[in-house]
């Protein structure tokens, strides 16, 4: 069953009506071709109106769409010979993060990403893509290996956040994320981070320090979920829609704030409509990033990374 978002309802209704008329035409002698073509034109316009004018809250819904492609979907489309490796070597294997190596255009790369489940059973196994400390430590282990073998690192970001649980605190959720931020700052290989769904706060950032940060058009990146922001700021989580606007969390907002490098376009109606087309858009941007970063020496890379982060923020000097 396809998940229909509330704002898409008029489109779905109209599509159903067209399908109805078509089957009616097929089954009887009455010709409704002109009606159908009028409706199809109206559908085209309606789709353009709705998808061409998405509000922040609509994009939040898109980013959370059940059928939205995940890290493993993109890995399959973009890379060859992906081998997944498990475990942080000190506690366990966190399936909320996948990591491994693969070929990208005949060159080996390290690929790491948050991984949501496609159904309830998988979601339980993967903890809904919300990592524990061992997930971040597994990621860091792979990043260090990438540095040793001088492979670029590609991170896919897609999480509601790091898991807020008792065990996570006991094992040092804060330290695990902080360590990744610090170590990623100093890795002498190119790091490219792509937000593909939800970029939830520190849990997203734990895979998010890099040379180039890109976002899919309908993904979000925020310090707190719109619901959380509304509860905290206005004591009413029902104001999430408003918070989504105020908090500036869409790809275009982040581009405007100079936090990300590129907005990667999505097929009309969202990434889930056409995974291959979406992978194609990512491919183009990724290839460009890798090419640009490959020309830099390790020192230049690190200096540019510092320059990049140094300028993020807004303040006055009196």
């Amino acid at each position: 069953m396809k998940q229909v978002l509330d704002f898409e309802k008029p489109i779905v209704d109209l599509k159903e009506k067209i399908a109805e008329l078509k089957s009616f035409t097929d089954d009887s002698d009455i010709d409704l071709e002109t009606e159908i073509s009028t409706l199809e034109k109206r559908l085209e316009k309606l789709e353009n109106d709705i998808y061409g004018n998405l509000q922040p809250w609509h994009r939040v819904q898109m980013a959370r769409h059940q059928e939205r492609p995940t890290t493993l979907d993109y890995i399959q489309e973009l890379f060859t010979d992906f081998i997944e490796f498990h475990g942080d070597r000190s506690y366990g294997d966190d399936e909320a993060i996948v990591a491994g190596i693969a070929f990208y255009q005949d060159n080996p790369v390290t690929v790491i990403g948050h991984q949501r489940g496609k159904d309830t059973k998988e979601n339980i196994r993967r903890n809904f893509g919300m990592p524990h400390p061992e997930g971040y430590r597994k990621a860091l282990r792979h990043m260090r290996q990438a540095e040793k073998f001088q492979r670029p690192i590609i991170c896919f970001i897609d999480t509601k956040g790091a898991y807020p649980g008792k065990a996570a605190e006991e094992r040092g959720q804060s330290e695990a994320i902080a360590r990744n931020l610090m170590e990623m700052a100093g890795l002498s290989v190119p790091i490219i981070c792509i937000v593909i769904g939800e970029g939830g706060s520190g849990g997203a950032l734990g895979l998010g320090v890099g040379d180039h940060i890109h976002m899919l058009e309908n993904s979000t990146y925020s310090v707190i979920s719109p619901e959380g922001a509304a509860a905290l700021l206005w004591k009413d989580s029902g104001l999430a829609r408003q918070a989504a606007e105020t908090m500036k969390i869409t790809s275009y907002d982040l581009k405007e704030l100079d936090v990300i490098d590129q907005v990667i376009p999505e097929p009309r109606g969202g990434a889930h409509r056409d995974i291959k087309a979406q992978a194609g858009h990512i491919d183009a941007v990724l290839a460009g990033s890798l090419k640009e970063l490959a020309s830099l020496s390790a020192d230049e890379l690190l200096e540019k990374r510092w320059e990049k982060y140094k300028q993020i923020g807004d303040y006055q000097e009196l």
Partner: protein
Amino acid sequence: MLKDFFGKKRKYATIPNEESKIDIPEGLMKKCDKCHKIYYRKEWNKNINVCPNCDYHHPLTAWDRINSLFDEGTFVEWDRQLTTTNPLAFPGYEEKVDKDRNKTGLNEGVVTGKGIIDGQETACSVMDSNFRMGSMGSVVGEKISRALENAKNESLPFIIFTASGGARMQEGVLSLMQMSKTSVAVKRFSDAGGLMVSVMTHPTTGGVSASFASIGDYNFAEPGALIGFAGRRIIEQTIREELPDDFQTAEFLLKHGQLDKVVHRHEMKSLLTVLLSMHAQGRKNV
């Protein structure tokens, strides 16, 4: 119980008269937040805001902390001229910042600078939870990053006292990105051979605990300080079970291997002095 029948019930409440109110100057006495014992303000000051009775560590302002550690008159403040803007045009944000600026006399939630502790020069950043809960916005991130760069350039050690509720919501993703920015600065400082000591004080949570607070060469905390990534209420809602009383305290973190040491406020200066002297040799070779 039988004795319940004989309970003394007061018919009237005692209200201090106007005269007795006038007799006690404002702020002469201070009550402990935990055990409620009352002591003279002088005694609190002498005790660096630690309760003489129950040892509860009350929050310190950034300047009280600095004065408790640095040799008199040696602390030089950095970047006091940086002030907050309203990058997301968030309703009411400027007013809130102005209010706390007036209340605390600080430009933002952290004081950075350098000074001398028992004859040894060091860079230091002290967060103040009285300023928007010590939350990290662009100015806090910038000041800490600059302090780390200054420390690197001047070959000084870097000590940070954290006190923060986490990210500054009103600056949205720019606040989140201060976590990366400060961490990149820590990495540069650390790679240059610098000594970084992090002392987590009450409270150190969210984005601050998940960035520079947790990545010192030595991570200390004051007794009883609340330290953690996620909020207690959120965790209770998520896992649907009650958490132990000591959950996310300094002692809890120590038990779970997340801290080097819990340090009493009265011992902080002597510990830092020894630690600085033990690393002085290495610095000369940098």
